[in-house]
């Protein structure tokens, strides 16, 4: 080895070491602004990043880079929570679930954006165009107060996924008529008018064993009527159960009721017990995985896509996979409608549901220069043209002018249920204790779902826990 090659080798090694040391750190010059954003890794965020890269031109003329950290969904909270609470100060923007707001606002991580909205009439107008349910859920803390923190990234609601091929089959229609003296819902409109009783009948009707006939064909595996979320993880039963409770006239505690609101007597009210009982009663018509407490939103979606159930209640956000023939056996047999409701004495359906979806928020350590660019980005994102593009690419928009545009329903088959659903969406607590409340509630619901305790005990336990916890936190007096 000559001295020269030795030197070269050394230089290479040193260069590599330097790369290792510096790692991913980016060197920014004066007019380059980088916005770092923590988002869950899924199409609605991927498409946002793509649209930004392809189309966004900042009005300021600065070179703005959106550095998006796509974090897989299962670890998203863990990553974001650890980053925020440890003081890593890594992200300027974070997509947040609506329930997280309180925890991170109280911790001082999420920046209040009222001043930014007020300073910009255009943005203020856009916010006023936003559906109030979405604003309340995604932006406000305490819930429903005019303290704004976030902007919708992907708003979401639960809708009914149905299978046209079995629902509209003549034989099945006739058999259903014969059995229940009612019309088996087949079209979107018929599904829109479906109440829980009808949903239950459909569940019961489509319970088939291997070898039975379904829509004229012999089944090579068991078939089940219905599916909805009944899993122990995260919020994978509360989001459905809350809908039942509200429809029955029951209530949940949330911070809008401070200081007089109580958990005991409210959370475990008679109406709520009846609602939970109703929810539990339908589980028998679901695939057997529901008995294990792992029937989450993904499992029910998977069962539906694999053609194991006739109907599924799930978030719109999971819809794309059903449409894709590669991941769905029912991609050409889909029909969508509203989530069922409870038929009231007047024959009208009482509707309530828990809103899903995520806002994105600004963090408190974002600098003024970054905020300026960030607001430019937000305005661009919420502009009707971009919202239309987003919806066309599989997203949803909560801006009135967008979702009321006749074009909107043509983007995706479930969009016909979108605008109507928005009106009866509610959200749960946004308090910092949300995860404790949620975890305990999910644990209790799981016991009920897996048949280990009845609805009354379940709700009593939840009420008692919430009462204690919230009292300790000074939220209940």
């Amino acid at each position, binding site marked *: 080895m000559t001295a020269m090659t030795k030197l070269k080798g050394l230089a290479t090694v040193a260069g590599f070491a330097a790369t290792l040391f510096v790692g991913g750190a980016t060197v920014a010059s004066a007019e380059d602004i980088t916005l770092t954003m923590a988002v869950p890794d899924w199409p609605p965020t991927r498409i946002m990043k793509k649209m930004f890269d392809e189309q966004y031109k900042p009005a300021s003329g600065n070179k703005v880079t959106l550095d998006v950290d796509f974090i897989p969904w299962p670890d998203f909270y863990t990553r974001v*929570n650890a980053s925020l609470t440890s003081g890593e100060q890594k992200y300027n923007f974070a997509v947040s679930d609506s329930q997280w707001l309180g925890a*991170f606002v109280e911790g*001082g991580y999420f920046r209040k954006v009222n001043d930014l909205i007020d300073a910009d009439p255009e943005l203020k107008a856009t916010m006023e165009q936003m559906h109030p349910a979405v604003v309340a859920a995604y932006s406000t803390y305490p819930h429903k107060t005019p303290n704004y923190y976030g902007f919708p990234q992907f708003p979401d609601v639960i809708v009914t996924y149905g299978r046209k091929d079995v629902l509209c089959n003549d034989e099945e229609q006739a058999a259903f008529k014969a059995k229940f003296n009612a019309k088996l819902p087949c079209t979107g409109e018929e599904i829109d008018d479906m109440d829980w009783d009808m949903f239950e009948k459909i569940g019961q009707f489509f319970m088939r064993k291997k070898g039975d006939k379904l829509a004229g064909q012999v089944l090579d595996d068991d078939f089940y009527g219905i599916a909805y979320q009944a899993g122990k993880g995260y919020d994978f039963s509360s989001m459905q159960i809350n809908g039942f409770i509200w429809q029955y006239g029951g209530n949940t505690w949330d911070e809008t009721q401070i200081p007089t609101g109580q958990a005991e007597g409210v959370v475990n009210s008679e109406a709520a017990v009846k609602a939970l009982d109703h929810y539990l009663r339908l589980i028998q018509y679901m695939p057997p*995985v529901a008995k*294990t*407490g*792992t029937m989450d939103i993904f499992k029910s979606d998977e069962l539906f896509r694999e053609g194991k159930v006739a109907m599924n209640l799930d978030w719109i956000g999971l819809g794309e996979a059903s449409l894709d023939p590669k991941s769905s056996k029912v991609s050409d047999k889909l029909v969508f409608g509203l989530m069922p409701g409870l038929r009231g004495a007047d024959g009208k359906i009482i509707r309530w549901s828990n809103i899903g979806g995520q806002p994105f928020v600004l963090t408190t350590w974002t600098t003024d220069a970054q905020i300026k660019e960030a607001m430019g980005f937000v305005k661009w994102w919420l502009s009707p043209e971009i919202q239309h593009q987003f919806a066309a690419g599989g997203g949803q928009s909560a801006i009135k002018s967008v979702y009321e545009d006749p074009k909107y329903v043509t983007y995706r088959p479930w969009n016909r249920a979108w605008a109507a659903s928005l009106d009866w969406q509610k959200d749960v607590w946004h308090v910092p*204790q949300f995860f404790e409340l949620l975890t305990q509630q999910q*644990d209790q619901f799981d016991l009920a779902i897996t048949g280990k305790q009845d609805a009354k005990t379940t709700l009593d336990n939840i009420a008692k826990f919430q009462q204690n916890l919230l009292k300790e936190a000074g939220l209940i007096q």
Partner: protein
Amino acid sequence: MTSTTVPAAPPAFTAFSPDNWRLALIAGIVISAVAIAALPSGVAFWITGIMMALVAIAATMNAVRRRYYGGLLVAPAIAVLFVMNIFPLLWSLGLSFFAYQSNQQTIRFVGLNNYIKVLTNDLAAKDNWAALTNTAMFVVFTVAAQMVIGFLLALLFSKQFPLRKYLLILVLTPMMLSVVAAGVFFTYYYDPTFGILSYIMREMTGEQFILMDNKAGAVAGIVFADAWMWSPFVMLLVLAGLVSVPKYLYEAAAIDRVSGWRQFRTITFPYIRGLLMLALLFRTIEAFKIADLVILLTKGGNDTMTISYHLIRIANEQNKTSEGAAISYLMLFMVIVLTNLYLYLANRRTQGN
């Protein structure tokens, strides 16, 4: 050590020499303290770092001149461990005496209150104790299963036979899988609709089979997956012990007409005892931390909550940092007691002979 020359005497405290670590330490502490007090944290961090490096250099020089080889050799490891592990652990230990939630800005000294709370509080303690009992159950079941399966597999592979190398790698593969992927795939194997297990059971009995709908099944499912993944670890250690037994001992035993069981007890076992101990030690430590598989397979349902999963909920999801620290230190205490018990028993048996 066979050193012939006498090491140099330690330098006088005031001497300005590169091996005067005492002086360096004092100077380092003073300068760092000033820096931390007066400068922004980013700058102070680096100044403190440089000071620590200087002290380290002085200590090293001192060790070289006085021939403290043991200290010199161990120092880098201790340094890395201190920065990356022990310091954070002490930080957590400190936090366990405060009321602190990582998502709030307040902190307040509460002494042992966190410990008292996690052990006796109406709301918190019940979950802790339940999770602890379950963890104990998992530790017993999965460690026992791993030891037995690992041991039997090792016996199987202790002979020389054709293709041994290729078959051994098959058995070793499970522990190379990522726990998440393995766990997710076990949810598929156990799935009552799509899974192979339920399919086979139904083909055999004609009845629908749901493994995870009761505690026994859920525990069995988790233990099976965990034991399947980690038995190869035990196997490899035991196998190493088995192949290290000199062959002539078995030949002598054959000549002496020693029965199989006695042969195992008096010849084989003494050779693998140390390795079994190491396997038991590391597997027990790991089993105490079991959480991933529980999260993936049951989410703690069917009464399968473990202390480690509980800890993740408390410390990460609910941000109750100091309460989590208290739980983890109680847990650490138990693991230390248990591992020391192992080591004590192991050493007593060794000395007994």
